[in-house]
């Protein structure tokens, strides 16, 4: 199992007296995993720990069975695009990718081929022979991504990879992540932009103050907290008053509110599964239901419920 997962076992990291992350236990399966949290929540520290750029003060880490303290083995199958926006001086985009591929021990011809492919994948072919120092922020972000994917890694760690990208490139980049995930690879992405996380993640890890607040598939996390935070559904129908009264008869429904201008009914329930079954019965009984929209079944709502005030960007 550990050969297929990124495992952090009770990992803590302190910078002197400052907490980086504390008692983190995670098992990350293949697919896209998003680390979500405000600035200073420990996302970057966690990524640096996974890639061995910093060492844990306590605990144990294994990336597909390899200890991150062995870079010579780890970076054969791991690519990491950091948030550090600095580059070795004087290199063009393609020289930058090529040089670090050479460092990995590939033959010159193979390095050229991998460089060309990586630069194509991030859409920087035209700028490949320009100095990285002359790149825009978005281009620098892309060339970092190219460097991370150039050796075709099985594990891709990306710290805020969509920052500074224009919408078109952003969409292409997300498609690339999805392709990686579909091939059974690990893509670990940190982000504080929640709607992006919603779009791309198979699972999320919510972080705050160096701690893991919740982890798992977003719906799973949401249902875990439905006792304290009932789930909300927006139901569009022709007879909202009738639907509201029928729904409120159920003991798990805590609120059924009619929305103005016939937008529908907002229902809060502590048991989403039972409520969905009831809706089926009501539809069969003749209530014309036009649409059912989960109103807070997303990362942002979960994040707000769990972490509250330290709000990342929506």
């Amino acid at each position, binding site marked *: 199992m550990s050969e297929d997962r990124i495992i952090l076992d009770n990992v803590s990291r302190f910078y002197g007296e400052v907490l980086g992350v504390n008692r983190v236990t995670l098992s990350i399966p293949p697919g896209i995993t998003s680390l979500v949290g405000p600035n200073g929540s420990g996302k970057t520290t966690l990524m640096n720990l996974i890639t061995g750029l910093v060492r844990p003060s306590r605990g144990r880490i294994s990336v597909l069975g390899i200890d991150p303290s062995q*870079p010579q083995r780890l970076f054969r199958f791991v690519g990491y695009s950091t948030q550090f926006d600095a580059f070795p001086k004087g290199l063009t985009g393609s020289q930058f990718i090529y040089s670090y591929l050479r460092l990995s021990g590939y033959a010159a011809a193979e390095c050229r081929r991998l460089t060309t492919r990586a630069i194509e994948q991030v859409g920087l072919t035209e700028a490949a022979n320009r100095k990285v120092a002359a790149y825009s922020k978005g281009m620098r972000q892309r060339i970092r991504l190219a460097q991370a994917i150039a050796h075709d890694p099985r594990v891709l760690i990306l710290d805020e990879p969509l920052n500074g990208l224009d919408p078109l490139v952003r969409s292409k980049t997300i498609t690339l992540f999805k392709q990686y995930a579909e091939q059974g690879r690990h893509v670990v992405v940190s982000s504080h932009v929640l709607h992006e996380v919603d779009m791309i993640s198979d699972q999320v890890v919510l972080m705050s103050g160096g701690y893991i607040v919740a982890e798992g598939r977003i719906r799973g996390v949401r249902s875990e907290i439905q006792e304290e935070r009932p789930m909300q559904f927006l139901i569009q129908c022709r007879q909202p008053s009738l639907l509201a009264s029928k729904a409120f008869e159920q003991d798990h429904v805590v609120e059924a509110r009619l929305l103005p201008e016939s937008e529908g009914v907002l229902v809060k329930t502590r048991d989403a599964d039972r409520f969905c079954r009831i809706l089926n019965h009501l539809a069969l009984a003749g209530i014309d239901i036009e649409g059912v929209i989960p109103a807070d079944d997303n990362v942002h709502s979960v994040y707000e419920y769990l972490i509250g005030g330290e709000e990342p960007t929506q």
Partner: protein
Amino acid sequence: MIWLWCTQILAIVRLEMKKTFFSRRGLWVYLLAFAPLLLFMCHSVSVAHRRDQLRQIAAEHPVSREDLSAIQVGMTRDQVAQKLGEPYTRLDRQHRDGQSEASEHSHWKYTDGETDVHLFFRDDSLTGIHRNELDTLPRVLQIFAGVFQSYYLRLAVFFGCVGIFINLFRGEMLDKSLHFYLLTPVRREVLLVGKYAAGLLATVVIFTSSTALQWLVLLWQFDHATVAEFFAATGWGQFSSYVAVTALACVGYGSVFLAVGLLFRNPIIPTAAVLLWEGVNPFLPAALKKISMIHYLQSLCPVSPAPGRDVPGFIHLLIAPVQPATRSMAVVSILVLTLVVLVVAARLSQRMEINYSTE
């Protein structure tokens, strides 16, 4: 595996070349390395020019070296003129001190083309002889030995290695670009060796080429026959020794400052400590002397600078080891010291972390 490491080391050297040779931050290293070359060049040009002048004068006012040597204090002007003929420059003047009678002072100059001789007469008696000899080969070699040991090894190569080797890790920490190396499948020890090799290549090329050029520039003022004769005798040996000592200095100091750059956030304090240690080396007991680079480097220098009358005593202490180590002992000691420092640095590099925010 060894082949992979060699490939990786070569790739690191290639990546570092631009930074070590052409970084704006390292321009002062070239200044340190080539400052003596500039000075020696000026000296050689001026001596050669003066030699041409004196030879031209000697051709117009021929005087033999033997005749010049025969002149002694107390001779009269007539005796001198009879022996040497008319001087090429002559200055006569009357001088009165207080109430005493006026005396006649004369300043005559002669040359045989190599030595400029100044004769000072009071009334009719020769009272002083001053001989300005142009550089001779042994004297030039002494000058070079003095500059090489007191400035070049102790300051130029030392600070050159500080500038290049410390920046190999520390510079990239400050630039926030070191992590790119740590995100590749390269063992930390291999990274360290690669960076050391890159620094060594740069310092050896810069400083040995300066050493060689300094030597050639100093010899340039002599005629071809003198230089050829010197090289046929001991010249090549001395030349290669100086180049080798320079390279060994880069090997030794390079390892120390690579480790300093790796281990210390503020390398100024450890650098000052090493400088102090190397500086006080001549005053240390024999056992402690052996734990320094400069002791072994000086032991390998082919010429010990003689204590010239212009050289202060403490400078002479700095340029001449009292009990030099044998040649083989010196080389082995420098290499062992280097190896120990590199092994310790390699072990510590395993614990290296990226934490730019604290830099």
